[in-house]
């Protein structure tokens, strides 16, 4: 049985890879490839966010009886990242490399510190809290695309 921590952490690494590839192409001025890779990165990250917001977080809130705790903060950080996605999209549209790289630097840290909190605190708490129903939750998350 795989744990929430393992599967969701692997998902984070996948998003990191996509991010690094997009950034590399855009830094090299390859806007064609870069734009496609940027879109692919945003798509996989959005999918990951929805797995959490639509399945994991509500179940976590039920299991722990708290809707105002860590999940609230995680959702606020998703909102911050979505705002950065928008700004980055406009930099891609304008082919403004410096702006894109300034924003990607910012996004990278938000993303990494967000991942760290999830991987080291929230997912571990989720694994402890869910017990038997963890498999079922993982299965429902697979349904999100």
């Amino acid at each position, binding site marked *: 049985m795989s744990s929430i921590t393992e599967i969701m952490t692997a998902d984070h690494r996948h998003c*990191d*890879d996509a*991010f*690094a590839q997009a*950034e*590399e192409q855009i*830094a090299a001025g390859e806007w064609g490839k870069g734009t496609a890779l940027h879109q692919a990165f945003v798509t996989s990250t959005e999918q990951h966010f929805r797995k959490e917001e639509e399945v994991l977080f509500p179940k976590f809130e039920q299991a*722990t*009886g*708290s809707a105002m*705790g*860590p999940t609230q*903060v*995680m959702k*606020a950080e998703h*909102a*911050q990242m979505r*705002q950065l996605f928008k*700004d980055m999209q406009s930099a891609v549209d304008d082919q403004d490399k*410096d*702006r894109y*790289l*300034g*924003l*990607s*630097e*910012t996004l*990278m*840290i*938000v993303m*990494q*510190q967000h991942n*760290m*909190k999830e991987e*080291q*605190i*929230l997912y*571990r*708490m989720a694994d*402890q*809290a869910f017990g038997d129903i963890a498999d079922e939750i993982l299965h429902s998350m697979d349904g999100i695309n």
Partner: protein
Amino acid sequence: MLGTANLSLEQAPPLSIPFRFFLTAPLFGVVAGLLVLFYGSEVITSRWLPATLGLTHVITLGFLTMVMCGAMMQMLPVLTGSPLPRVRFVGASLHIGLVVGTSALVLSFLTGFNVLTWMAMFFLGVGLGIFLVALFVALIRVKVTSATITGMRLAGFALFLTIALGLLLLVARSGWLEFSQPRLWVDAHLGWGLVGWVGLLLVSVSYQVVPMFHVTPEYPGWMRGALGKILFILLLAWSVGWLMLSQQMVSEFILALLLLVLLTFVVTTFRLFLKKKRKVRDVTLWFWRASLIGVLGAVIIWFSLEFVPPTWDASIWALMIGALALFAAMAVINAMLYKIAPFLSWFHLQHRQLALGCFSVSVPHMKTFLSDRAVISQFYLWLSGVMCFLLALLLHRQLVYPGAILMAASNLYLFWNLVSIVRLYNKVNRQLTAEAAKPARD
């Protein structure tokens, strides 16, 4: 039962708390440069001279400890979900304690006035004491532990021992106590301060910060689990051997093991940087590389001295090892400041923007807060300062003077870069406030 109520992931302290430490540290860096300029080549003659002792404490307390404590207050809630209790009070007391205490300590070394020694003991003891109590409480409350948290606990303990030994030495200095072999106690104080507090904390924070800021693979699991504990145990064994048993051979052997452990960390970090996923240029890495090379150099010199009897005055090499270790620590901290300061400013502003729903004001990204050019220029100033100091030790003593000027200048530049970040933050923050106060239009 999981206490989620206690575990909010966002209890970050107000921005003014970490920033007062970040802004003060480079000013002590400037003081360090001026001290060298004033006392000249005396500071590189022996580690026991008053000016050298003053200089090392300006750097270790005024620069390193200043930033490390400020950053810990900021990072604890993020890394552990457990903030320092009464963070405003603790932040203010520690800041005042460090500023006044360090200044008094340095002046006491230079002038020998007892009243300054007592003042230093009071301010450093109380300020750092309050911080340690708060840190202890925060680390006890941690629900889910990790290698970084274990490392922080051990580093906190090392800081406690360093302060305790330092205070004892000050009591002895003021004539109330006598040690039979004071130099051994000074070495223990130095070992716990440099390897225990600075080394252990930087190592354990790197487990988080290196993958986070540079998107590298994780440090190997065994390393994260064991390295901090091994360092701590070796340090303990070394000080017992050194202080209680006067076993020089045993202590040297343990010290060799300790340096090999540090070397493993340095080599691993190099390898992680080579394997980083993010390929775009990252200028803060230059500081990291310089720092790793510095530690590597210090370890190589130490081992060479063990096996090959020094042809030159051995005290020069001891100073060289000390200088490399201090420069290495300063470089890593400089690099971390350049990530943390712009990021925090952005983070607080964007958080406000979203909370106010105020999208007509745009929040600047990190590179608007701090351009690559500003980082590169400061890096070169810093590096040339370091080179002058090292060459002054090896070749010509008069090179400490340009070294001192460059050291002061690079710290002034660091200060200016941080001030520019704060100014931009304040400007955008005011814009957001003004925009939010406008009556809503139809």
